Protein backbone atom coordinates (compact mmCIF):
# COMPACT_ATOMS: atom_id res chain seq x y z
CA UNK A 1 0.00 0.00 0.00
CA UNK A 2 1.31 3.43 -0.91
CA UNK A 3 2.25 6.07 1.62
CA UNK A 4 1.12 9.66 1.20
CA UNK A 5 3.41 12.32 2.66
CA UNK A 6 2.32 15.93 2.79
CA UNK A 7 5.12 18.46 3.20
CA UNK A 8 4.00 21.64 4.92
CA UNK A 9 6.00 24.83 5.28
CA UNK A 10 4.75 27.35 7.84
CA UNK A 11 5.72 30.65 9.43
CA UNK A 12 7.19 28.75 12.36
CA UNK A 13 8.59 25.52 11.03
CA UNK A 14 8.05 22.52 8.78
CA UNK A 15 5.65 19.63 9.29
CA UNK A 16 5.36 16.22 7.63
CA UNK A 17 1.89 14.63 7.53
CA UNK A 18 1.78 10.96 6.66
CA UNK A 19 -0.98 8.50 5.88
CA UNK A 20 -1.58 5.36 3.88
CA UNK A 21 -3.37 5.66 0.56
CA UNK A 22 -6.77 5.59 2.23
CA UNK A 23 -5.88 9.05 3.58
CA UNK A 24 -8.04 8.74 6.66
CA UNK A 25 -5.59 8.49 9.55
CA UNK A 26 -2.65 10.86 9.64
CA UNK A 27 0.48 11.21 11.71
CA UNK A 28 1.90 14.67 12.21
CA UNK A 29 5.65 15.08 12.51
CA UNK A 30 7.15 18.42 13.45
CA UNK A 31 7.95 21.15 13.84
CA UNK A 32 11.26 20.83 12.08
CA UNK A 33 13.27 24.09 12.23
CA UNK A 34 10.86 25.42 14.85
CA UNK A 35 10.62 29.19 14.88
CA UNK A 36 11.93 29.62 11.32
CA UNK A 37 9.87 30.52 8.28
CA UNK A 38 9.74 27.62 5.86
CA UNK A 39 8.66 29.19 2.61
CA UNK A 40 8.85 25.90 0.76
CA UNK A 41 9.51 22.24 1.45
CA UNK A 42 9.54 19.76 -1.41
CA UNK A 43 10.91 16.45 -2.60
CA UNK A 44 12.75 15.14 -5.62
CA UNK A 45 10.47 13.37 -8.12
CA UNK A 46 13.19 10.80 -8.83
CA UNK A 47 14.40 10.26 -5.26
CA UNK A 48 11.44 11.04 -3.01
CA UNK A 49 13.37 10.79 0.24
CA UNK A 50 15.59 13.63 -0.97
CA UNK A 51 13.83 16.68 0.46
CA UNK A 52 14.79 20.33 0.22
CA UNK A 53 13.59 23.09 2.54
CA UNK A 54 13.92 26.84 2.29
CA UNK A 55 14.49 28.06 5.85
CA UNK A 56 14.65 31.76 6.54
CA UNK A 57 14.05 34.39 9.14
CA UNK A 58 14.38 38.09 9.72
CA UNK A 59 17.20 37.69 12.20
CA UNK A 60 19.49 35.11 10.66
CA UNK A 61 18.78 35.14 6.94
CA UNK A 62 18.48 32.29 4.47
CA UNK A 63 19.40 28.64 4.85
CA UNK A 64 18.68 25.65 2.66
CA UNK A 65 18.22 22.33 4.41
CA UNK A 66 18.43 18.92 2.76
CA UNK A 67 17.24 15.55 3.93
CA UNK A 68 18.22 12.26 2.34
CA UNK A 69 15.97 10.11 4.51
CA UNK A 70 12.52 11.55 3.99
CA UNK A 71 12.79 14.20 6.66
CA UNK A 72 14.06 12.11 9.57
CA UNK A 73 17.33 14.05 9.55
CA UNK A 74 18.39 17.28 7.93
CA UNK A 75 21.62 19.11 7.20
CA UNK A 76 22.15 22.66 6.03
CA UNK A 77 23.64 22.94 2.57
CA UNK A 78 24.70 26.04 0.63
CA UNK A 79 23.18 29.45 1.31
CA UNK A 80 25.41 31.62 -0.87
CA UNK A 81 22.91 33.24 -3.23
CA UNK A 82 24.91 35.87 -5.05
CA UNK A 83 23.64 38.04 -7.89
CA UNK A 84 26.13 37.35 -10.64
CA UNK A 85 27.83 40.14 -12.54
CA UNK A 86 26.43 43.63 -12.53
CA UNK A 87 23.75 43.63 -9.83
CA UNK A 88 21.82 46.40 -11.54
CA UNK A 89 18.61 48.04 -10.44
CA UNK A 90 14.87 47.49 -10.66
CA UNK A 91 12.02 49.80 -9.79
CA UNK A 92 10.86 50.19 -6.21
CA UNK A 93 7.19 50.59 -5.26
CA UNK A 94 7.47 54.36 -5.68
CA UNK A 95 8.93 54.05 -9.16
CA UNK A 96 12.49 54.93 -8.19
CA UNK A 97 15.41 52.63 -9.10
CA UNK A 98 16.77 50.38 -6.37
CA UNK A 99 19.58 47.79 -6.49
CA UNK A 100 18.58 44.13 -6.48
CA UNK A 101 18.84 42.84 -2.90
CA UNK A 102 18.56 39.20 -1.90
CA UNK A 103 15.91 38.55 0.74
CA UNK A 104 14.87 34.88 0.65
CA UNK A 105 14.14 31.80 -1.43
CA UNK A 106 10.43 31.41 -2.07
CA UNK A 107 10.36 28.20 -4.06
CA UNK A 108 12.53 25.16 -4.71
CA UNK A 109 11.95 22.99 -7.77
CA UNK A 110 13.90 19.74 -7.96
CA UNK A 111 14.76 18.35 -11.38
CA UNK A 112 12.52 15.69 -12.90
CA UNK A 113 15.63 13.70 -13.80
CA UNK A 114 18.45 14.27 -11.32
CA UNK A 115 18.07 14.37 -7.53
CA UNK A 116 21.13 16.59 -7.20
CA UNK A 117 19.77 19.29 -9.49
CA UNK A 118 17.39 21.77 -7.97
CA UNK A 119 16.23 25.25 -8.95
CA UNK A 120 15.52 28.08 -6.52
CA UNK A 121 13.39 31.17 -6.99
CA UNK A 122 14.47 34.23 -5.04
CA UNK A 123 13.21 37.55 -3.80
CA UNK A 124 14.42 39.94 -5.25
CA UNK A 125 13.58 37.99 -8.36
CA UNK A 126 16.30 35.69 -9.62
CA UNK A 127 16.57 32.05 -10.60
CA UNK A 128 19.35 29.87 -9.20
CA UNK A 129 20.36 26.30 -9.92
CA UNK A 130 22.40 23.79 -7.97
CA UNK A 131 23.72 20.59 -9.51
CA UNK A 132 25.26 19.19 -6.33
CA UNK A 133 22.31 18.77 -4.03
CA UNK A 134 22.13 22.38 -2.92
CA UNK A 135 25.74 22.88 -1.86
CA UNK A 136 26.58 25.48 -4.50
CA UNK A 137 24.14 27.82 -6.22
CA UNK A 138 24.62 29.56 -9.55
CA UNK A 139 22.39 32.29 -10.85
CA UNK A 140 20.88 31.85 -14.30
CA UNK A 141 21.54 35.49 -15.01
CA UNK A 142 19.72 35.90 -18.31
CA UNK A 143 16.39 36.16 -16.52
CA UNK A 144 17.26 39.02 -14.19
CA UNK A 145 19.27 40.65 -16.95
CA UNK A 146 16.39 40.52 -19.42
CA UNK A 147 16.03 43.97 -21.01
CA UNK A 148 12.75 44.44 -19.15
CA UNK A 149 14.41 43.78 -15.76
CA UNK A 150 15.15 47.40 -14.81
CA UNK A 151 11.41 48.06 -15.15
CA UNK A 152 10.24 45.25 -12.86
CA UNK A 153 8.46 46.31 -9.66
CA UNK A 154 7.63 44.26 -6.56
CA UNK A 155 4.14 43.10 -5.73
CA UNK A 156 2.81 43.65 -2.24
CA UNK A 157 4.58 40.51 -1.04
CA UNK A 158 7.91 41.51 -2.52
CA UNK A 159 9.50 40.99 -5.91
CA UNK A 160 9.51 37.25 -5.65
CA UNK A 161 10.14 34.50 -8.15
CA UNK A 162 7.56 32.12 -6.75
CA UNK A 163 6.75 29.62 -9.50
CA UNK A 164 9.10 27.33 -11.42
CA UNK A 165 7.80 24.70 -13.84
CA UNK A 166 10.29 22.35 -15.47
CA UNK A 167 8.59 21.17 -18.62
CA UNK A 168 7.96 17.40 -18.63
CA UNK A 169 8.41 17.05 -22.40
CA UNK A 170 10.76 19.76 -23.61
CA UNK A 171 13.74 19.12 -21.41
CA UNK A 172 15.25 22.59 -21.78
CA UNK A 173 11.99 24.45 -21.29
CA UNK A 174 11.44 26.30 -18.01
CA UNK A 175 8.54 28.52 -16.99
CA UNK A 176 8.83 30.99 -14.12
CA UNK A 177 6.52 33.61 -12.67
CA UNK A 178 7.46 36.74 -10.79
CA UNK A 179 5.31 39.17 -8.81
CA UNK A 180 4.83 41.65 -10.30
CA UNK A 181 6.87 41.21 -13.46
CA UNK A 182 4.84 38.40 -15.03
CA UNK A 183 5.52 35.01 -16.58
CA UNK A 184 8.61 34.05 -18.56
CA UNK A 185 9.66 31.02 -20.60
CA UNK A 186 13.07 29.72 -21.48
CA UNK A 187 13.54 27.12 -24.22
CA UNK A 188 17.26 26.73 -23.65
CA UNK A 189 17.62 25.77 -20.01
CA UNK A 190 17.66 29.33 -18.76
CA UNK A 191 20.18 30.83 -21.17
CA UNK A 192 17.55 33.20 -22.57
CA UNK A 193 14.03 34.20 -21.61
CA UNK A 194 10.85 35.32 -23.31
CA UNK A 195 8.14 37.26 -21.46
CA UNK A 196 4.88 35.36 -22.02
CA UNK A 197 2.20 37.79 -20.92
CA UNK A 198 0.27 38.52 -24.09
CA UNK A 199 -3.44 38.69 -23.39
CA UNK A 200 -3.13 39.51 -19.71
CA UNK A 201 -5.05 42.58 -18.57
CA UNK A 202 -4.16 44.31 -15.31
CA UNK A 203 -5.85 47.49 -14.19
CA UNK A 204 -2.92 48.16 -11.91
CA UNK A 205 -0.62 49.04 -14.83
CA UNK A 206 -1.19 51.84 -17.31
CA UNK A 207 -0.27 50.01 -20.54
CA UNK A 208 -2.44 46.93 -21.01
CA UNK A 209 -0.15 45.68 -23.77
CA UNK A 210 2.98 45.89 -21.64
CA UNK A 211 5.05 42.74 -21.95
CA UNK A 212 5.78 42.81 -18.20
CA UNK A 213 4.28 44.30 -15.05
CA UNK A 214 1.49 41.79 -14.51
CA UNK A 215 1.11 40.32 -11.04
CA UNK A 216 1.03 36.61 -11.75
CA UNK A 217 0.25 34.68 -8.57
CA UNK A 218 0.67 31.11 -9.75
CA UNK A 219 1.01 28.87 -12.80
CA UNK A 220 -0.05 25.22 -13.08
CA UNK A 221 0.46 22.62 -15.79
CA UNK A 222 -0.68 19.06 -16.42
CA UNK A 223 2.20 16.89 -17.60
CA UNK A 224 0.15 15.36 -20.42
CA UNK A 225 -0.53 18.78 -21.96
CA UNK A 226 2.65 20.75 -21.54
CA UNK A 227 1.59 23.62 -23.81
CA UNK A 228 -1.46 24.34 -21.67
CA UNK A 229 -0.84 26.45 -18.61
CA UNK A 230 -3.34 27.77 -16.12
CA UNK A 231 -2.71 31.01 -14.25
CA UNK A 232 -4.14 32.59 -11.16
CA UNK A 233 -3.32 36.23 -11.69
CA UNK A 234 -3.79 38.93 -9.07
CA UNK A 235 -7.25 39.25 -10.58
CA UNK A 236 -8.37 36.82 -13.30
CA UNK A 237 -7.91 33.12 -13.93
CA UNK A 238 -6.24 32.63 -17.30
CA UNK A 239 -5.18 29.83 -19.62
CA UNK A 240 -2.86 29.44 -22.56
CA UNK A 241 -2.76 26.55 -25.00
CA UNK A 242 0.33 27.65 -26.86
CA UNK A 243 2.96 27.63 -24.12
CA UNK A 244 2.32 31.21 -23.16
CA UNK A 245 2.09 32.64 -26.65
CA UNK A 246 -1.29 34.10 -25.76
CA UNK A 247 -3.60 33.96 -22.77
CA UNK A 248 -7.37 34.10 -22.44
CA UNK A 249 -9.47 34.65 -19.37
CA UNK A 250 -11.42 31.68 -17.98
CA UNK A 251 -12.68 33.22 -14.74
CA UNK A 252 -16.24 32.60 -15.92
CA UNK A 253 -18.74 32.33 -13.10
CA UNK A 254 -16.34 32.45 -10.14
CA UNK A 255 -17.62 34.57 -7.24
CA UNK A 256 -14.26 36.35 -7.25
CA UNK A 257 -11.39 35.82 -9.63
CA UNK A 258 -8.83 37.12 -7.15
CA UNK A 259 -6.79 34.42 -5.45
CA UNK A 260 -3.41 32.83 -5.10
CA UNK A 261 -3.11 29.08 -5.81
CA UNK A 262 -4.24 27.12 -8.84
CA UNK A 263 -3.87 23.37 -9.35
CA UNK A 264 -4.66 20.74 -11.98
CA UNK A 265 -6.18 17.32 -11.25
CA UNK A 266 -3.53 14.59 -11.56
CA UNK A 267 -5.46 12.58 -14.16
CA UNK A 268 -7.86 15.06 -15.76
CA UNK A 269 -5.99 17.84 -17.54
CA UNK A 270 -9.11 19.99 -17.91
CA UNK A 271 -10.05 19.79 -14.22
CA UNK A 272 -8.63 22.70 -12.29
CA UNK A 273 -8.97 24.13 -8.80
CA UNK A 274 -8.79 27.64 -7.36
CA UNK A 275 -9.64 29.23 -4.02
CA UNK A 276 -11.46 32.53 -4.62
CA UNK A 277 -10.48 35.35 -2.28
CA UNK A 278 -12.59 38.46 -1.90
CA UNK A 279 -10.15 41.04 -3.24
CA UNK A 280 -6.62 42.36 -3.09
CA UNK A 281 -7.58 44.45 -0.08
CA UNK A 282 -9.68 41.73 1.61
CA UNK A 283 -7.55 38.62 1.78
CA UNK A 284 -10.25 36.24 2.93
CA UNK A 285 -12.96 34.18 1.20
CA UNK A 286 -16.12 35.88 -0.07
CA UNK A 287 -18.93 35.87 2.51
CA UNK A 288 -16.70 34.21 5.11
CA UNK A 289 -17.19 30.85 3.34
CA UNK A 290 -14.13 28.79 2.48
CA UNK A 291 -14.86 27.32 -0.92
CA UNK A 292 -12.60 25.59 -3.37
CA UNK A 293 -13.89 26.00 -6.92
CA UNK A 294 -13.45 23.24 -9.46
CA UNK A 295 -13.82 23.51 -13.19
CA UNK A 296 -14.06 20.32 -15.23
CA UNK A 297 -13.96 22.30 -18.44
CA UNK A 298 -10.58 23.95 -18.14
CA UNK A 299 -12.18 27.12 -16.82
CA UNK A 300 -15.24 29.29 -17.51
CA UNK A 301 -17.66 26.95 -15.71
CA UNK A 302 -16.96 26.45 -12.01
CA UNK A 303 -18.60 24.60 -9.15
CA UNK A 304 -18.15 25.36 -5.46
CA UNK A 305 -16.77 22.57 -3.29
CA UNK A 306 -17.90 23.09 0.27
CA UNK A 307 -18.51 19.76 2.00
CA UNK A 308 -16.33 19.68 5.09
CA UNK A 309 -15.08 23.25 4.71
CA UNK A 310 -16.20 26.05 7.04
CA UNK A 311 -19.16 27.90 5.55
CA UNK A 312 -19.46 30.71 8.04
CA UNK A 313 -17.15 33.10 9.86
CA UNK A 314 -14.07 31.91 7.96
CA UNK A 315 -11.51 34.60 7.22
CA UNK A 316 -8.36 32.72 6.31
CA UNK A 317 -6.29 33.03 3.15
CA UNK A 318 -4.66 30.33 1.04
CA UNK A 319 -1.27 31.32 -0.31
CA UNK A 320 0.07 30.61 -3.77
CA UNK A 321 2.32 27.66 -2.91
CA UNK A 322 -0.14 26.12 -0.46
CA UNK A 323 -2.15 23.79 -2.72
CA UNK A 324 -1.09 20.43 -4.14
CA UNK A 325 -2.53 17.29 -5.71
CA UNK A 326 -1.47 13.69 -5.25
CA UNK A 327 -1.24 11.06 -7.99
CA UNK A 328 -3.36 8.30 -6.50
CA UNK A 329 -6.15 6.90 -8.68
CA UNK A 330 -8.70 8.89 -6.73
CA UNK A 331 -6.89 12.19 -6.92
CA UNK A 332 -6.27 13.87 -3.56
CA UNK A 333 -6.27 17.64 -3.18
CA UNK A 334 -4.52 19.43 -0.31
CA UNK A 335 -4.31 23.02 0.81
CA UNK A 336 -3.13 24.97 3.84
CA UNK A 337 -4.48 28.21 5.24
CA UNK A 338 -3.19 31.30 6.96
CA UNK A 339 -5.10 30.01 10.00
CA UNK A 340 -2.92 26.91 10.24
CA UNK A 341 -5.38 24.36 8.90
CA UNK A 342 -4.34 21.78 6.33
CA UNK A 343 -7.40 20.40 4.52
CA UNK A 344 -7.46 17.43 2.22
CA UNK A 345 -9.91 15.76 -0.09
CA UNK A 346 -9.49 12.10 -1.03
CA UNK A 347 -12.20 12.33 -3.71
CA UNK A 348 -10.97 15.05 -6.05
CA UNK A 349 -12.62 17.81 -4.04
CA UNK A 350 -16.11 16.42 -3.45
CA UNK A 351 -15.55 16.34 0.31
CA UNK A 352 -12.93 17.76 2.62
CA UNK A 353 -11.54 17.19 6.08
CA UNK A 354 -8.80 18.84 8.09
CA UNK A 355 -5.61 16.87 8.65
CA UNK A 356 -4.49 19.40 11.27
CA UNK A 357 -6.17 22.56 12.46
CA UNK A 358 -3.73 24.56 14.51
CA UNK A 359 -0.39 24.81 12.77
CA UNK A 360 1.29 28.18 12.32
CA UNK A 361 0.18 30.06 9.18
CA UNK A 362 0.79 27.76 6.22
CA UNK A 363 3.11 29.00 3.47
CA UNK A 364 3.43 25.91 1.29
CA UNK A 365 1.98 22.46 0.76
CA UNK A 366 3.43 19.67 -1.38
CA UNK A 367 2.46 16.03 -1.51
CA UNK A 368 4.35 12.86 -2.34
CA UNK A 369 3.05 9.36 -3.02
CA UNK A 370 5.63 6.81 -1.92
CA UNK A 371 5.58 3.17 -3.02
Amino acid at each position, binding site marked *: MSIVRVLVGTRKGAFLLTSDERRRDWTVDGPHFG*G*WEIYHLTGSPVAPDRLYASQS*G*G*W*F*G*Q*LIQRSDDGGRSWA*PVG*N*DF*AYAGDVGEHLWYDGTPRPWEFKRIWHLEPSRHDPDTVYAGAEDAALYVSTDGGEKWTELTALRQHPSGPGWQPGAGGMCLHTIILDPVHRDRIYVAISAAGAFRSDDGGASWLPINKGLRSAEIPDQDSETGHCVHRLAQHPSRPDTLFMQKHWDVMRTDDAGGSWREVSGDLPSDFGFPIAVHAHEPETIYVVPITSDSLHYPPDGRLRVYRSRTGGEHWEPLTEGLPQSHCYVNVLRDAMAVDTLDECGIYFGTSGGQVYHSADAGDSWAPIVRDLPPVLSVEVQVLP
Partner: protein
Amino acid sequence: MIRVVLPAHLKNLAHVTGEVRVEVAGPPTQREVLDALEAAYPMLRGTIRDRHSGARRPFVRFYACERDLSHEPPDAPLPEEVVVGKEPFIVLGAMAGG
Protein backbone atom coordinates in the same frame (compact mmCIF):
# COMPACT_ATOMS: atom_id res chain seq x y z
CA MET B 1 40.15 31.03 24.00
CA ILE B 2 37.25 33.38 23.36
CA ARG B 3 33.91 32.42 24.86
CA VAL B 4 30.96 33.01 22.54
CA VAL B 5 27.29 32.89 23.47
CA LEU B 6 24.95 32.17 20.57
CA PRO B 7 21.20 32.74 20.38
CA ALA B 8 18.99 29.66 20.62
CA HIS B 9 18.28 29.35 16.90
CA LEU B 10 21.97 29.38 16.04
CA LYS B 11 22.84 26.92 18.80
CA ASN B 12 20.30 24.54 17.28
CA LEU B 13 21.70 25.12 13.83
CA ALA B 14 25.28 24.50 15.00
CA HIS B 15 24.21 21.55 17.18
CA VAL B 16 25.79 23.02 20.30
CA THR B 17 24.57 23.66 23.80
CA GLY B 18 25.93 26.30 26.12
CA GLU B 19 28.82 28.52 25.18
CA VAL B 20 31.23 27.76 22.37
CA ARG B 21 34.93 28.57 22.49
CA VAL B 22 37.04 29.70 19.59
CA GLU B 23 40.71 30.43 19.22
CA VAL B 24 41.81 33.37 17.11
CA ALA B 25 45.19 33.75 15.51
CA GLY B 26 45.67 37.49 15.76
CA PRO B 27 44.54 40.17 18.19
CA PRO B 28 40.91 39.34 19.03
CA THR B 29 38.43 41.51 17.15
CA GLN B 30 34.82 40.99 16.12
CA ARG B 31 35.98 39.97 12.68
CA GLU B 32 38.57 37.49 14.00
CA VAL B 33 36.11 35.93 16.41
CA LEU B 34 33.36 35.62 13.81
CA ASP B 35 35.80 34.28 11.22
CA ALA B 36 36.92 31.62 13.71
CA LEU B 37 33.34 30.86 14.67
CA GLU B 38 32.29 30.37 11.04
CA ALA B 39 35.36 28.23 10.36
CA ALA B 40 34.44 25.95 13.23
CA TYR B 41 30.72 25.98 12.42
CA PRO B 42 30.32 26.54 8.65
CA MET B 43 26.53 26.30 8.90
CA LEU B 44 26.59 29.70 10.61
CA ARG B 45 27.94 31.44 7.51
CA GLY B 46 25.50 34.07 6.41
CA THR B 47 23.42 33.93 9.58
CA ILE B 48 25.33 36.53 11.61
CA ARG B 49 26.99 38.53 8.83
CA ASP B 50 26.01 39.05 5.22
CA ARG B 51 27.95 36.52 3.18
CA HIS B 52 29.21 39.09 0.72
CA SER B 53 29.49 42.45 2.44
CA GLY B 54 30.50 40.96 5.79
CA ALA B 55 28.14 43.42 7.45
CA ARG B 56 26.34 42.42 10.63
CA ARG B 57 22.80 41.38 9.83
CA PRO B 58 20.43 44.16 10.86
CA PHE B 59 18.65 42.23 13.61
CA VAL B 60 21.79 40.72 15.13
CA ARG B 61 23.56 42.40 18.03
CA PHE B 62 26.94 41.90 19.72
CA TYR B 63 27.24 42.49 23.46
CA ALA B 64 30.10 42.03 25.90
CA CYS B 65 30.88 43.31 29.38
CA GLU B 66 27.44 44.89 29.57
CA ARG B 67 28.20 47.00 26.51
CA ASP B 68 26.62 47.02 23.07
CA LEU B 69 29.50 46.48 20.64
CA SER B 70 27.24 46.16 17.60
CA HIS B 71 28.34 49.42 16.08
CA GLU B 72 32.04 49.05 16.87
CA PRO B 73 34.29 48.70 13.81
CA PRO B 74 34.78 44.99 13.05
CA ASP B 75 38.54 45.33 13.48
CA ALA B 76 38.40 47.15 16.81
CA PRO B 77 40.03 45.22 19.67
CA LEU B 78 37.59 43.39 21.90
CA PRO B 79 37.50 44.22 25.64
CA GLU B 80 40.30 42.65 27.65
CA GLU B 81 37.81 40.65 29.73
CA VAL B 82 36.65 38.93 26.51
CA VAL B 83 40.22 38.38 25.34
CA VAL B 84 41.24 36.63 28.57
CA GLY B 85 38.02 34.60 28.71
CA LYS B 86 36.60 36.29 31.77
CA GLU B 87 33.53 37.52 29.89
CA PRO B 88 31.78 36.03 26.82
CA PHE B 89 31.21 37.67 23.47
CA ILE B 90 27.44 37.54 23.10
CA VAL B 91 25.68 37.21 19.73
CA LEU B 92 21.95 37.75 20.04
CA GLY B 93 18.88 38.41 18.01
CA ALA B 94 17.39 41.85 18.48
CA MET B 95 14.13 41.98 20.40
CA ALA B 96 11.80 42.20 17.43
CA GLY B 97 9.24 40.16 15.62
CA GLY B 98 7.00 37.42 16.95
